[in-house]
């Protein structure tokens, strides 16, 4: 089934939001991604899985605009995307979290989440310098949105706590909050449950489902925990050695012999 995009369960997912067409990404002689195509539909939770070094994070970096592929096209909301800087991609409505947490450790949780609103801030340098009036009004409006996210992710008790003092699981949640603050159309999660205990994982699963449900955010995630992936996602792309070896609903992927080989470790030549 390699190459063919599986028919999605379209009961609740909408039209195609993002389409990756024949993406190839090379670092010098190393081919990180070889000719991969898949799409992400509006409102779905799309997982990218695969063994270590399969090229999952590279794929996410292509989507977020951090890497520009040598070949292939990225289509977003029906338009072909020219090579862009990450901040331009962010403005288009794509937000992400990182595999190894990338928060401002010395700043409070609230301030960290406020930085997620940066791309949405309108007032100019002068207004910000004067502060009273327009900038203040704008900040109140942004703060209101941020407070809703704080409430949503149940992190009220650490609102004023510096991020550096938080345990790992909460930092991950703060990262998710910051990504959500940008009100993304598409949310990219790079191993959101890595290093978490069972309880934290369960919480995170619930938050991801709730985000998808409540805000209608489309989510693309990379995750190692197969249980989590199969429970959460609507459709799964499976990568191995930079190639796509499977694509479909969790059940289809689970039954795919190539995927089983990749995970159970059949001798590669």
């Amino acid at each position, binding site marked *: 089934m390699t190459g063919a995009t599986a028919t999605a369960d379209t009961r609740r997912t909408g039209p195609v939001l993002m389409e990756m067409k024949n993406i190839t990404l090379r670092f010098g002689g190393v081919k990180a991604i070889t000719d991969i195509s898949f799409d992400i539909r509006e409102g779905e939770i799309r997982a990218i899985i695969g063994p270590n070094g399969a090229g999952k994070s590279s794929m996410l970096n292509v989507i977020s605009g951090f890497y520009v592929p040598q070949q292939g096209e990225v289509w977003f909301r029906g338009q072909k995307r020219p090579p862009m800087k990450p901040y331009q991609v962010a403005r288009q409505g794509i937000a992400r979290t990182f595999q190894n947490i990338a928060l401002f450790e010395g700043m409070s949780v609230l301030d960290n989440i406020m930085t997620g609103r940066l791309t949405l801030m309108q007032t100019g340098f002068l207004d910000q310098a004067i502060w009273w009036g327009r900038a203040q009004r704008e900040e109140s409006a942004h*703060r*209101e949105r941020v*407070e*809703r996210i*704080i*409430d*949503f992710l*149940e992190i*009220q*008790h650490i*609102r004023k706590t510096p991020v550096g003092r938080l345990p790992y699981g909460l930092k991950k949640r703060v990262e998710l909050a910051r990504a959500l603050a940008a009100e993304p159309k598409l949310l990219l999660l790079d191993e959101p449950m890595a290093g978490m205990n069972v309880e934290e994982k369960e919480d995170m699963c*619930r938050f991801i*489902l*709730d985000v998808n*449900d*409540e805000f209608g955010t489309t989510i693309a995630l990379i995750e190692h925990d197969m249980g989590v992936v199969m429970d959460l996602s609507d459709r799964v792309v499976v990568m191995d050695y930079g190639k796509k070896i499977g694509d479909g609903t969790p059940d289809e992927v689970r039954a795919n012999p190539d995927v089983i080989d990749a995970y159970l470790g059949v001798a590669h030549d």
Partner: protein
Amino acid sequence: MAHPAAAPAELCSIPALLARNARQFAGRDAYREKEFGIWQSWTWAQAQDEIRAMAMGFLALGLARGDHVAIIGRNRPALYWSMVAAQMCGAVPVPLYQDAVAEEMAQVLDHCGARLVVCGDQEQVDKVIEVQDRIHHIEQVVYVDKRGMRKYDHSRMNALADVVAEGRAAHHRFAAELDTRISELGWGHTCVMLYTSGTTGKPKGVVLSNRNIILTARASCEFDRLTEAEEVLAYLPMAWVGDFIFSMGQAMWAGFCVNCPESPATMMTDLREIGPTYFFAPPRVFEQQLTQVMIRMEDAGRTKKWLFDRFMALARRVGPAILDGRPVATADRLAYALGNLLIYGPLKNTLGFSRIRVGYTAGEAIGPEIFDFYRALGINLKQLYGQTEASVFITQQPDGQVRSDTVGVPSPGVELRIAETGEVFYRSPGTFVEYFRNPESTASTKDAEGWVATGDAGFFEEGTGHLRIIDRAKDVGRMADGRLFAPKYVENKLKFYPAVLEAVVFGNGRAFCTAFVNIDLTAVGNWAERNGIAYASYQELAGHPRVYDMIRTHVEEVNRSVAQDPMLSGCQIRRFLILHKELDADDGEVTRTRKVRRRIIEEKYADLIAALYDGRDSVSTETEVTYEDGRKGAIRATLRLADAATVASPPDRRAAA
């Protein structure tokens, strides 16, 4: 005081009080809740408007007179309103403990026969759905927080906001019906039904009438001169009678403002922001706060620590006297005023107690040190003694007559007598109507003349007339040689040490007493850190030899103190062990209000008790534990049993002489 002088006959229900407050205090804040980082508030007029709309929404859902409405969730204005809205419809609100597992909830929901259930959030809805396949009388589920609820089957489920909107839209249809139902309410109607956690057996539904609640609220408001200017923080379980009296009965009677915290985790911050004037907390909360203060002071700089120690010594000496208005030397007064500026004031502010006029604690005995600490700071902390069946108040301490070892004088309107067995009986306007669908228990608890057995043994102190409680009457027993055995008396003395979270003493019918001890992870963990003791888990810390040494010192001190009292000197602890797990309500070992369930512990840990009495040094055991989500697991441990020195009791000494 803008109090209505008498209790006119028309103020005989909570909805009637609400209407009065909406007239008299229209513009004053009635409810506040911190949400989205800001205190959102509702005036009495707005609250009435919301509650009426909600009640009409309930009518639209088909709520009938006499129906029971179960309410499950953390303290939120919307849930308090739903209780009043249910009353307006002639129905009976039944608040349930939100941390109960589905199984416990099933028992109660089944027993009360609720047709409508109001849930705080998805977690509670899930539990209700889980029990619904066994309990078929639940017709409608209403929830407050919409998060995660989108995909649920909504054929018999509604968001509370939608119910309110529907009620508002349908006011032409329902307003007249609602007014009729409100006007029908009288003294005899049930105001609320509360399930007692019950230290034994299944929970019982205590039916409290409007007469019970409103007369009690009125008497207690007058006792402490509570006015509409009070601020309270509603953070204790809504299913507990105390919260119903404080946040509903007294708030409605006096017209004061009820503040709901943002989440359970932010309670301390919210407490500080609100600065309540009237505050209730179980001893545990005061203990935790004191422990935190002490831990933080240990980390403070030398000057600050010195200032703190010095001024606290002064405060302990003269603070309570100043609070009680007794004569104090001018020099001490001046020094205390300086201390207030430098230490007490800032400390009280940090704790959120700057504005406290009246503070109560009850439920368990409070350690004299803890009690004195708060009183020394100038916080008017008092004790009361009560129970669900009495609508809380049985005795309370009047201002100026406060001590840690008594529970005060009978509350206004309460009659007390002590039976020959030592058990305390009371009769009051707040005495409950009955146990719901349980005439046998009603009859065995309340006699024909209205006297209710508290189940506690106690006596009136000579001279002051204050009541002192020794123990649960049924727990008081005799040792093998006939000496009095009062476990709680000893346990309380042990629990006054910060390192001890819980203690259970055994010895009824035995030759000597033994004890289980639960260490307090915060206090002992901090102590371990300070002393360079490494530990990986609660279990490991609990079994550490140096922790054993520390606890042994405490036990021996308690033994010396117990030996002072000739009546109870037999209760000295000869052997003890430190439990490998915390006693937990999910395992049924303590009640939701954290009272020890002696019988259950005796059965569950029978092997450990046997080992304490047969002289072994260690014992291996396996214990079943229940996780918060209801799953079960087991922990295995080998526990050390330790001996403690006892002091010869006075009669023995006389024999030896």
